[in-house]
């Protein structure tokens, strides 16, 4: 019942399906040899084919086909030996041909599934209906001139994979986890760069609400969302909107919606009557795509280790929890980083959980604060390993470790360099600590009396003072032990 949301009158369940559009990682476009590089000056990557000049013809880019097959395998999906490119006909200024070459009846990839993992250790399969290849459109630039729209065709013809899920998703969080998982798989496979900000990965969300156990309601489609945050926001807003309508006795119109990222609201773009008739038909310029079984096998053999395999391996090898392992394997760079860190010293094998914590809480929060990504982290995996080694071997305390990590982050020095330079090495010498404690006790005789009089809580005060004296370097356990024994002796 956790998945239900409360309206004024009833509890409602969301039914969500996603169409993910992932740009294929490829140097050239789906049907032309133009470059796909992002951010080039407008209309500098446009071939005669991309501009739909008279008499120009599409020629399939074999590499993009291989990337789609690879992705299909990564999504545990059926690869179709026979698929067909169709024309989806509609007019728009940034669609030079007047049609998009897509796949309609016969997609290159059929049914598959992906698994999402929850914090509580459970997981859920989201079924994939299909994956098909299609061309991206260009871009209409409406903000360059008060009265004109400019068209940039650099993106025109870039290969996209549209990955369509079954309506198996029930919450905005699941939607977010699903798209993260898709992104993760694509990035492991190196078939999409996963960059949502640049639009390499975006999603259309289909959403309806129903009372639990009832038939699916009428759905609305929210177009073109390019961040997980917006996906969740849009779903939440749209579900509430639909529930309000239904609870006040209205019906849902099957609309295509746009999400305004500034207001967090959805608004209708067109309704069912205004929906395009795309007049799909097989593109007569292209032959059906036939992929021999042997080619599929060859591609299969080149598939790298995928996040789920790696997750299971981590659980098996390091006894990590399902959730920790899934966080660690969500991005290839994270699991690579973890692997590099744990392998940097043989002793670290015994502390996988500590390494995970240092990566996913301490390092990630520093990276977040500085708007950085793990791949440009100033702290290398090897250096992080060294830091954890210093902590686990009691050379420094965990608290000092945090300061050292921050210092590593700004100075890019190694943990040991910083510890040595700043003399942060933990004081474990009994005699030295004893001296400090004696000093603290003698300077705070009044407090000592109070402590001995029964104010046990004051022990913390003495620990603090002693730590201050040692600049935090005293081994806390040793310090505690000595302090307790000294205070008793006084008695």
């Amino acid at each position, binding site marked *: 019942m956790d998945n239900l949301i409360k309206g004024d009158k009833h509890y409602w369940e969301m039914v969500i399906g996603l169409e993910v559009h992932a740009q294929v990682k490829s140097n050239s476009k789906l049907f032309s040899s133009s470059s796909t590089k992002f951010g080039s000056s407008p209309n500098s990557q446009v071939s*005669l084919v991309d*501009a*739909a*000049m*008279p*008499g*120009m*013809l*599409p*020629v*399939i880019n074999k590499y993009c086909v291989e990337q789609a097959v690879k992705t299909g395998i990564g999504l545990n999906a059926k690869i179709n030996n026979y698929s067909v490119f169709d*024309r989806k*006909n509609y*007019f*728009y*200024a940034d669609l*030079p*041909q*007047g*049609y998009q070459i897509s796949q309609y009846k016969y997609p290159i990839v059929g049914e598959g599934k992906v698994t999402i993992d929850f914090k509580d250790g459970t997981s859920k399969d989201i079924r994939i209906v299909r994956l098909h290849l299609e061309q991206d459109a260009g871009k209409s630039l409406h903000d360059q001139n008060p009265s004109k*729209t400019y*068209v940039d065709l650099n993106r025109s013809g870039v290969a996209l994979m549209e990955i369509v899920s079954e309506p198996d998703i029930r919450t905005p969080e699941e939607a977010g986890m699903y798209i993260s998982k898709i992104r993760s798989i694509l990035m492991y496979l190196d078939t999409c760069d996963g960059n949502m900000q640049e639009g390499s990965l975006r999603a259309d969300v289909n959403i309806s609400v129903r009372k639990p156990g009832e038939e699916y309601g009428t759905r609305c489609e929210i177009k073109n969302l390019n961040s997980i945050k917006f996906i969740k926001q849009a779903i939440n807003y749209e579900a509430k909107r639909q529930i309000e309508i239904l609870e006040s006795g209205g019906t849902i119109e099957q609309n295509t919606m746009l999400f305004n990222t500034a207001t967090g609201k959805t608004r209708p773009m067109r309704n069912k009557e205004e929906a395009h*008739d795309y*007049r*799909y*038909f097989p593109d*007569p*310029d*292209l*032959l059906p795509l036939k992929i021999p079984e042997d080619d599929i096998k060859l591609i299969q053999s080149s598939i790298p280790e995928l996040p789920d395999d790696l997750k299971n391996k981590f659980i098996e090898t390091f006894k990590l929890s399902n959730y920790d392992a899934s966080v660690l394997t969500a991005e290839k760079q994270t699991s690579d980083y973890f692997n590099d860190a744990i392998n940097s010293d043989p002793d670290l094998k015994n502390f996988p959980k500590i390494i995970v914590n240092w990566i996913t809480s301490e390092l990630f929060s520093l990276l977040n604060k500085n708007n950085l990504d793990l791949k440009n982290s100033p702290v290398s995996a090897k250096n992080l390993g060294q830091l954890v080694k210093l902590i686990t071997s009691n050379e420094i305390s965990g608290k000092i470790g945090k300061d050292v990590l921050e210092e590593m982050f700004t100075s890019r020095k190694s943990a040991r360099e910083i510890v040595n330079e700043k003399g942060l090495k933990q004081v474990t010498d009994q005699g030295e600590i004893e001296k400090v404690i004696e000093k603290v006790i003698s300077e705070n005789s009044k407090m000592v009396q109070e402590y001995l009089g029964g104010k046990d809580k004051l022990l913390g005060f003495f620990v603090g003072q002693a730590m201050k004296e040692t600049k935090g370097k005293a081994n806390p356990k040793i310090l505690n032990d000595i302090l307790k024994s000294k205070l008793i002796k006084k008695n």
Partner: protein
Amino acid sequence: MISKSIKKTLQSLEQKDISIRELNQEYIKKIKEKSNLNIFIHFEEQKILDQVTELEKDNSNKRLKGIPLAIKDLFCTKNMPTTAASKILENFNPTYESFVTQKLLDDGAIFVGKTNLDEFAMGSATDTSYFGNTINPLSADDTPLAPGGSSGGSAAAVAANLCLGATGTDTGGSIRQPASFCGVVGIKPTYGLCSRWGIAAFASSLDQAGVFTHNVEDASILLESSAGFDKRDSTSANVKIPNYFENLNDDISGKTIGIPKEYSIDGTPEEVSQIWEDAIKVLEKKGVKIKNISLPHTKYALPTYYIIAPAEASSNLARYDGVKYGYRSKEINSLDEMYENTRGQGFGKEVKRRILIGTYVLSAGYYDAYYLKAQKVRKLIANDFNEAFKECDLIVTPTAPSAAFPLHQEQDDPIKMYLNDVFTVPASLAGLPGISIPYGKDKNNLPLGIQILGKHFDEQQVLNGALSLERSNG
């Protein structure tokens, strides 16, 4: 006197009886004299002379060196504008050269100009061109005749001897029918033999380039120069192009020729039936075996064609939207208005008719009944030919149901106009090679044509059959 033969002209050039410059100057003169026929959309004397000058500097041996050819204005050419006979491309100058015309240029041909056609090749009389009608050179002074279409300008250019050969495209008969109307040879090869790259598309699954010439020998020479595999066209066939000219042989004795009974259509003029019978008799005398065959789905060919071709055209012509190149209406207040006015003003009536038909047959709810069914029938028609060709080597039929008709006669009745393609469309749907050669005359002394169809990629036999018939034609 200049020979009307590419073969002989090449010999004259080689023997220096005439220079490339003299030859082309002669053709420039002829073209100017016949400007009243409105054969060319683009003709510029200086451009021809520039090409001559370039060739004069070139010492290499080229198989068509100096030969003046006319190019249907559907082929994109770098050196001359390309209009597809449409207002929407009135001022379009391609930056690229079509595969076929590039091959001809590589062989040293000289392009004398771009010829008129039906707008985007949609028509059978070259009367839907934005640039006006072309007049059949065989017309008597008082009754101007249609040259046929859509490649009417190219057929007329050869008929009026304004060039030694011309390129055309054939979607449902657009080479063979005008060849028949103008009394010249026109060959449409197998679908996929000549790359479509750089030819403005009408119906992609049917469009095929071919050539017009004065005789069969020349057709074999030009076809060899035009054909070839092109990886930029996914439907281009990767086959070795035979040496058609070297292999020409008019002795076809022992071969079997199929005569399809479904091509005897009620209402076909007596003289058309007569020349068909004559041709059969002549072939029989030459030791050919005549076999009556059946192509049972022939009667569905026209309706099938007039679903598939407009469906593809409606999509192919969507790119002419005023955004990137070509005509754009001045009256624009919104994007939709730009499309409406640009396309409303830029396209002619027949093109709009076919876009509407094509849009209709692809619409949700009608797709299965029209387009999908037409695709199934198309397979049946292709299969008819496959079956027939198990029993014969070539099929002989009339090319068109009549000789050239007077201009404007059929203009207001599209169905009647579409009937012109009745003998040519089935082979187009099946992707088969076909040739039309002049054979006999009607009662007004206008030429009629015989069509010879062959198996896929069996252009050699088609040419051999045509040569045999041509040589018996006195």
